């Protein structure tokens, strides 16, 4: 695991006030008076521990700002080479820890590499208005920082549920008076009319089933066949009955046949059809 590569920017300004110690990585631990800045490679760090640290960054811009601020660098004059190295170190660290690396971080690494390579190229004097390759990145960093600062300010505002709390009194116990509306006679009449109209819709035409039951007709037919050997098929029908009555009689005959209670016999083609009751078991012998 690489130690994050911290270098001081070659900068007159900093050189002038260099009486402060060089900023180095905070030692992880001090062992026998010797500070340990590099993690022993065989030391097992639960990935969650470092994940907590890396998770605090809200994206690549945030991480970059952290790297810049940590070294008191001027955002408007970012030493791209150093920052790129450090940034890539963090990315590698994330990879090593098998953290899920958001695409945005990789995109930023590529952008930094691009800027770095552009900075290495000599500047053409002829080309006017050539923008510093860092300009776009710096602009984004500055813009992001504005809103990051704003969000910190927003967080400081007094807010409900943290700084101020809504006070109130209970009012549910108060009986809610029920106001009874006054009704004009006119309205009463109108609604009664409506009731009548609605009632009308409920009047219906009662269709009574004719008391024709196949079962009952079956009994009647058997009754007719009783004490008779044969009966003419047509005699079973009462022609004064409606069509439905005739159908019921016919159905009754079919049903009786199905239940083997009657037998229908025709002695010759187109001859008279005779209906004959089948006798119960004890009388069968004489019949067949």
């Amino acid at each position, binding site marked *: 695991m690489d130690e994050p590569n911290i270098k001081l920017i070659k900068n007159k300004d900093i050189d002038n006030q260099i009486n402060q110690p060089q900023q180095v990585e905070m030692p992880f631990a001090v062992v026998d008076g010797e500070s340990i800045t590099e993690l022993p490679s065989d030391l097992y760090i639960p990935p969650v521990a470092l994940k907590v640290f890396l998770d605090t960054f809200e994206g*690549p811009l945030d991480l970059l700002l952290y790297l810049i601020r940590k070294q*008191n660098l001027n955002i408007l004059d970012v030493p791209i080479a150093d920052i790129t190295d450090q940034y890539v170190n963090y990315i590698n660290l994330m990879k090593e820890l098998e953290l899920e690396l958001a695409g945005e971080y990789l995109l930023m690494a590529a952008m930094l590499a691009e800027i770095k390579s552009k900075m290495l190229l000599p500047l053409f004097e002829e080309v006017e208005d050539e923008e510093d390759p860092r300009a776009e990145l710096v602009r984004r960093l500055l813009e992001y920082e504005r809103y990051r600062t704003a969000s910190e300010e927003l967080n400081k*505002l007094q807010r409900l549920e*943290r700084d101020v709390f809504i006070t*109130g009194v*209970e009012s549910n116990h108060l009986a809610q008076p029920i106001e009874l509306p006054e009704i004009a006679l006119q309205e009463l009449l109108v609604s009664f009319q409506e009731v009548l109209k609605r009632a009308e819709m409920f009047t219906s035409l009662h269709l009574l089933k004719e008391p024709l039951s196949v079962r009952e007709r079956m009994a009647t037919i058997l009754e007719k066949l009783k004490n008779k050997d044969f009966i003419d098929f047509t005699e079973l029908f009462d022609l004064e009955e409606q069509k439905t009555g005739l159908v019921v009689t016919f159905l009754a005959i079919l049903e009786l046949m199905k239940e083997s209670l009657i037998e229908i016999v025709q002695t010759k083609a187109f001859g008279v059809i005779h209906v004959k009751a089948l006798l119960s078991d004890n009388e069968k012998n004489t019949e067949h």
Partner: protein
Amino acid sequence: MYDDKLKNVVEAILLASYEPLSVDKLFRIITSKVKTNKTDILSAIDNLEKDYKDKDIEIVKVASGYRIQAKSEIGDYLNIMFADRTPRYSRALLETLSIIAYRQPVTRGDIEAIRGVSVSTSIMRTLTERNWIRIIGYRNVPGKPAMFATTPEFLDYFNLQRLDELPDLPEKKEPMDLDLELDDQSVESQDLEGNGSELVSVDSNQDMEAPTIQD
């Protein structure tokens, strides 16, 4: 209605409502029972304000109207009482909310461009569920992205009446004069939003942790 009676009525209504009520609404409620006018209601509110001076509750005006709340001085006590119920909001959520508040109307794309990371769906859901943001239209570009803005409830929550009461956004710095020579120690940046004549000199050793907030 006598002044004191009206004051007590206004107080009781505000306490019972648990949400801010505008003067219009107070007027409509009270006048349905007894004749009153908005000036009297406003002076009743004034009197309540005086009554509460030495108490730990106060009457404040927020975006949706007036509400009676516990002063921040006793917030510490109440935080102990509500210990587990105090909602905490992540930096990501506050950054997203700030961008919407200051730059509204904004699309998800705008937020992403500033923050450099994709907008979290769960954050947008939380903000919508808290009723702090809403969709106010769709930008007329391919994809018709929704434009988000803040709601009066957002202002209520942060104890504000209007958006311009938000702390000022830090001054915009433009890397216009970004010096191409690496060893130059100071960079002048033009203040585009200000008078233009003001030159901000930013030194490398300046402590940038403390943001400058313009008043």
